[in-house]
């Protein structure tokens, strides 16, 4: 099938919109995991400046994809639960932003929000609340992600030596 530049361009635009709607924290976690899974091991293994033994590099390299998988699974599960909880609280009206309250009282609405809803003030207030809630979720999500690193890394540290031991035939008797 021949893909015309405009169709490809539009497909990219659709993917970008879908991906962007996930929120900054999830995007950051996806990109981080993808880079760690696919690129980091290759860089450790085929680093032209490294003179470390092949086995040592293999051990360090295998750690990366395992850690990426364990981390992204735990992050997505935890962030999913956290975001659901925040959405529930928001639906009950328990999360209120000063910026939105001021806008409801006739205060200023940020220009990008007004532009997105073609100047409709009621819609703009809803959109502003949604934006504020998404940013709030991102920041709380970052704190949760940091807190999760302790159990997640402990778990991946337990798993990775077993996998590395299974995959690498260690005939090296070097003792340092």
């Amino acid at each position, binding site marked *: 099938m021949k893909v015309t530049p405009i169709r490809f361009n539009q497909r990219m635009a659709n993917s970008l919109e879908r991906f962007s709607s996930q929120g900054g924290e999830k995007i950051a976690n996806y990109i981080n995991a993808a880079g760690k899974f696919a690129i980091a091991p290759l*860089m450790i293994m085929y680093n032209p400046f490294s003179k470390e033994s092949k086995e040592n590099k293999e051990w360090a390299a295998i750690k990366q994809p395992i850690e990426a998988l364990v981390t992204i699974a735990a992050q997505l599960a935890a962030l999913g639960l956290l975001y659901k909880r925040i959405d529930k609280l928001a639906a009950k009206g328990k999360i209120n932003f000063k910026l939105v309250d001021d806008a409801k009282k006739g205060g200023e609405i940020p220009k990008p929000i007004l532009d997105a809803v073609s100047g409709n003030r009621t819609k703009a207030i809803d959109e502003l609340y949604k934006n*504020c809630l998404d940013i709030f979720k991102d920041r709380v999500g970052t704190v949760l992600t940091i807190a999760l690193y302790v159990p997640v890394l402990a778990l991946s540290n337990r798993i990775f030596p077993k996998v590395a031991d299974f995959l690498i035939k260690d005939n090296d008797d070097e003792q340092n």
Partner: protein
Amino acid sequence: MSKINAITQSNFFNKHLSKVINDDAFAAKTIVVCSVAKDVFAYTVRYKTTMDNEKIPEKRRPFVAAMDLASGVVTAIAQIVVGFAIASPKLQGKLWNTIFKDAQFKNIGLAKKGFATILALVGSGVITERVLVPLIATPMAEKMKNKYFTKDEKTGKTHYPFYEYLHWSSKNLEYFETKAKTKEADLVAPDTFDFYIRPQRPNELFADTHFFVPRMKEINR
């Protein structure tokens, strides 16, 4: 006011919200800073868990740990520099116009913010952290392993840099307390005694009442 609303109604948080909504470059930079903060924390935890992980063979552990430490240091600096450079509005505008010239968007504001964030993260989190950092960190880790990860000839155990700072147990607090006294203790404390009487200097005779230093046997070893 609930605890959540104490944050969501605060001036500081609302100024932050306003800046993130109005300025795509600031939004992308914030995500880069958050990403770096996570990395610094993660590399510290990683380094600590690696040095404590006895399931990694002793001969492999110093390099794996040195790799974590070197990566943490390099990644923080390099990611901030690259992420901030990519998030600049000038570069964002040029790339946006090149890639999405005739494309239609439901919410162009969200898409633009997402684009800035993704690009800054790919630049800092993938190209810098995964390509540049290992290139610099791997040889750096080798040098660090040889210089700072020293092996104790008596016990055969490796000493990891910052070990004491990452293990705040009572045993290590004791290590800091006794570190200063060890020189003295080595001179006078016999191995066979469980504790000893601290040698008194004339001007300390009545000032110092800490006569006993517990578990001197362990310290001497």
